[in-house]
């Protein structure tokens, strides 16, 4: 957004939702800390779907992912006054979400019952009756497409956790290596090597299905 819009705004007047949409994340944070109540709502609107997808692709449990997205926003809300405005807000919020996802996986690995429930839930989802949502596809194409997607999903789930996080951040969320390094708290070199290994393993798993 043009910097002038933020400057032009009369002090003390609440911004309209349309005006808030024009602000970048850092300006929204400043607006919220300055008493602009709806600014936080705008931040939630910007990030909740993306974070849900990121956490879901990392931990593989939709309901639990939603809880963790809630927890991410609660932590942001509590600590927004401590946010360093020289940093990128999106990196900060992804760091919080990524740490929560990591903790979740760690706890889950210690609790076989939770692991069993997650596997069962995924199995149930994989074995739903086929929905004919797209009539332009012949059943064979649709079946193949769905089968491939399921296999791709499974391939990503099979990646070791620290490879999967990097893979999802890069391939789905489009983060740069530097951002991934900040979010995951590892060096740039480690990001590169994890991403390379993740792509390699991913290719090994899906190759037989694609050819």
């Amino acid at each position, binding site marked *: 957004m043009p910097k002038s819009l933020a400057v032009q705004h009369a002090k003390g007047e609440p911004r309209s939702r349309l005006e808030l949409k024009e602000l970048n994340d850092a300006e929204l944070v400043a607006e919220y800390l300055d008493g602009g109540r709806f600014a936080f709502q705008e931040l939630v609107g910007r990030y909740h779907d993306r974070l849900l997808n990121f956490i879901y692709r990392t931990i593989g449990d939709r309901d639990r992912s939603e809880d963790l997205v809630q927890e991410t926003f609660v932590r942001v809300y509590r600590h927004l006054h401590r946010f360093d405005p020289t940093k990128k807000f999106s990196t900060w919020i992804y760091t919080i979400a990524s740490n929560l996802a990591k903790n979740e996986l760690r706890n889950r690995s210690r609790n076989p019952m939770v692991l069993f429930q997650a596997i069962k839930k995924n199995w149930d989802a994989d074995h739903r009756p086929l929905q004919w949502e797209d009539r332009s596809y012949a059943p064979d194409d649709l079946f193949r497409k769905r089968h491939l997607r399921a296999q791709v999903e499974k391939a990503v789930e099979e990646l070791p956790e620290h490879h999967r996080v990097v893979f999802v951040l890069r391939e789905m969320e489009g983060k740069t290596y530097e951002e991934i390094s900040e979010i995951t708290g590892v060096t740039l070199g480690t990001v590169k090597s994890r*991403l390379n290994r993740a*792509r390699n393993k991913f290719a090994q798993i899906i190759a037989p299905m694609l050819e």
Partner: protein
Amino acid sequence: MPGRGLLVMDCGEFLKGYSDYSDGLRTPEQLRDFDSHLRECPTCARYHRVVRQGIDLFRQLPRPDASPDFLPRLRHRLYHIDDHTVLGSRLGGGAALVAMAAVGLLALVWLPFASRIPVEIELAPVAVTVPASSAEVPSLFSPGPFVTPVIYERMWVGGAVPTIWERRSGSEELFEPLVQTGSSAAENDPSR
């Protein structure tokens, strides 16, 4: 092994640097070496194809939608954070008053035992009025020397409660009107 002698790099080098190549993070000269290896080596070409196709499919996976109660639930949680913050600071103030009252009471109790010095002081007579029943204070130290009806009233009626409600109305409005899903997140994200 495809025409190994003709290639600038071998398959091991290709795979090792594959991510850099894939993300365009090498010098133009090095990228050309990768390109030429891909043209000459069917194994690595297949690998590259599989990764690209797989990642395309991965990006097409349906994104989960937040459940309809996601925002109301979040709003509720944030509302309790506001509530807790205001109450916490108010209770902090109340606790200080109670502590002061306790110290005062202890001082009163201990004074006769602590002062062993045989000094006789003539105290002025103290007149005590019993508070009206409507102004009774449910205090631990009733009738307390410090927690008076006026202070009590200030703590709970004149002070904390309106402040909480002011804050509450604020956090309730935090999400009014409700956020629409499918926001223009991407266009506002500097990382995109």
